[in-house]
């Protein structure tokens, strides 16, 4: 299995899908400059720089998709999607419905976000939930290089508009990558556990894994579930894990209010209430724009220590080291 960075995994998905299907093409501000290898292999018509104007980039993609082409557009940083909102939400997301199913919009929108670079609120804003809230769109946000590739392949093959968010901090992380297509809508259990389920996606999956390590040292067994796709959400895997452990903490960098965590908590409360041994908790970024200052940016993002504290609270005691944990009632 080749090891590669998440960025390279994403590129290899693009190359493979463009080889596989001549309807797949790519454009956006600087894509041909940034992705020279794609330009060389597929030519200037299929890999194309556009003017710096997100609205027209997304609109052109939606129009082309309506005729059966499969554009992948790179809008760089997630907040820039605000310029493309109408084209994505009102056009790509709704025209299939409004036309009584006559059209499909098989397009992928790439955008990066997340803390780590100190770029401030107009370049870093985890807006993935906005699109989950909009009908007619799918939303994916991978945490591993394998998923950067596998999920993107699935997104390109999907007949619906897919928002594909990449976490800035993950671009240079390495991992094993295969040719496997990772279907949209399937969560992954990253670590098995009995006492609590930590549910997350993107960068904070790794935060949860680090916290699970620390919890294990204290005798607490945490399961870590990576949503991978935010819409469609894999309810089945979420509920099965929640029922097994009886305790759920949802962790994400995006703000709390109306975030993915709220949706997950509601689903668990509605459908697994009988099996819960504690309220579902959320550990999220604050309801604040992302700061530029490095220490503030770090304080913005959930950290392993906070997860450990939250889980220990949830289990009913802060000082668990001396306590027999098995079956502690809450």
């Amino acid at each position, binding site marked *: 299995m080749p090891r590669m960075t998440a960025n390279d995994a994403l590129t290899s998905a693009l190359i493979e899908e463009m080889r596989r299907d001549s309807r797949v093409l790519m454009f956006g501000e600087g894509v041909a400059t940034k992705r020279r290898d794609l330009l060389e292999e597929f030519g200037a018509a299929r890999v194309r720089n556009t003017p*710096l*104007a997100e609205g027209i980039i997304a609109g052109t993609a939606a129009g082309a998709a309506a005729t059966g082409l499969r554009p992948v557009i790179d809008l760089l940083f997630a*907040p820039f999607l*605000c310029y493309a909102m109408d084209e994505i939400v009102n056009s790509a997301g709704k025209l299939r419905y409004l036309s009584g199913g006559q059209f499909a919009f098989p397009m992928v929108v790439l955008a990066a976000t997340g803390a780590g670079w*100190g770029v401030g609120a*107009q*370049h870093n804003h985890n807006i993935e939930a906005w699109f989950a809230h909009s009908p007619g769109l799918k939303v994916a946000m991978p945490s591993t290089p394998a998923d950067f590739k596998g999920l993107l392949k699935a997104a390109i093959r999907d007949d619906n508009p897919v928002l594909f968010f990449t976490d800035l901090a993950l671009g240079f992380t390495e991992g094993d990558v295969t040719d496997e297509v990772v279907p949209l809508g399937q969560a992954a259990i990253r670590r098995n556990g009995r006492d609590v389920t930590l549910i997350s996606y993107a960068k904070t999956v790794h935060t949860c894994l680090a916290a699970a390590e620390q919890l294990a040292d204290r005798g607490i067994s945490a399961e870590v579930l990576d949503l991978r796709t935010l819409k469609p959400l894999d309810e089945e895997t979420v509920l099965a894990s929640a029922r097994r452990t009886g305790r759920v903490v949802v962790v994400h960098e995006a703000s709390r209010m109306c975030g993915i965590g709220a949706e997950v908590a509601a689903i668990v409360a509605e459908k697994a209430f009988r099996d819960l041994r504690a309220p579902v908790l959320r550990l999220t970024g604050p309801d*604040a724009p992302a700061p*530029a200052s490095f220490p503030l940016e770090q304080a913005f993002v959930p950290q392993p220590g906070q997860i450990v504290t939250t889980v220990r609270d949830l289990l009913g005691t802060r000082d668990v080291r001396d306590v027999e944990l098995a079956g502690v009632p809450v």
Partner: protein
Amino acid sequence: MAEAATRKPRGKGPKEPAMSRDELLRAYRDMLLIRRFEEKAGQLYGMGLIGGFCHLYIGQEAVVVGLTMCTKPGDQVITSYRDHGHMLATGMEARGVMAELTGRIGGYSKGKGGSMHMFSREKGFYGGHGIVGAQVPLGAGLAFANWYRGNDNVAMTYFGEGASNQGQVYESLNLAALFKLPVIFVIENNKYGMGTSVERASASKDLSKNGAPWGIPGEQVNGMDVIAVKEAGERAVAHCRAGNGPYLLEMKTYRYRGHSMSDPAKYRTREEVQKMREQSDCIDTARKLLLESYGVTEAELKVIDDEVKAIVQDSADFAQTSPEPDESELYTDILIEAR
């Protein structure tokens, strides 16, 4: 571009100078301050003291300095993320700007904004915008407020030639012309966006005509020549203050450094940059003119150089000693609590 950049200053020569001695000295000082400030910012970035993106204005100094000389109190300035020069030109303190770059509490946005997002209500500086083109409709709004209040202030609205392709820019041109708003649209055409040359991004060959469909007068100006910039600025400002509606200036300029700090700059040749630096540098040109035509002595310029150096050093010191913001700052300045 090459043509415009090598054109002689538009002033009528030393006999009837377009700028007085004091004015040109002032312009020289302000351009030098921006240049030295940016060089220092580049150094601090290299030392890892500045995070995020950092877009230097080196090469373009004449644009903002010349135009700011045409403004008066109450006028507003708004620009993109390449904003350090605009802030210094409006009289904002070098300390506060540098400390914002290093993310400290003494910065203009308490460290929350960083390089691309700084503001000063007091100086009429409305940012510092990270979203390309976002400042242009806001500039129209600032001008709207001037019109509404019935004053004769103008809103200087700066953006790049790359930004000029955003849809909102055209919406702004239309509305400003329709409402006759006192806004000066300044396209800082430095030939490149992040890595795309203007020829490859704009079908429009003469950006000064971008306002023409709406009847907005436009001029192409040698933005490497502070005197030419000021002269054009005076025409624009007079037009706006008299209630004639918007004006558009395409400033032909050039940035010497990369787009941001990590830019391999494969889209242009070293020779091109070298040529601009050697033949068209705004500071060299002003310096030469001061010495040769305005009777200024090396000693006088040395005093200015020293003053500038001291300000920049002080700002760098401050930017490293001002404390980091407290974590509680995450939760302030978001919504205004009802009183």
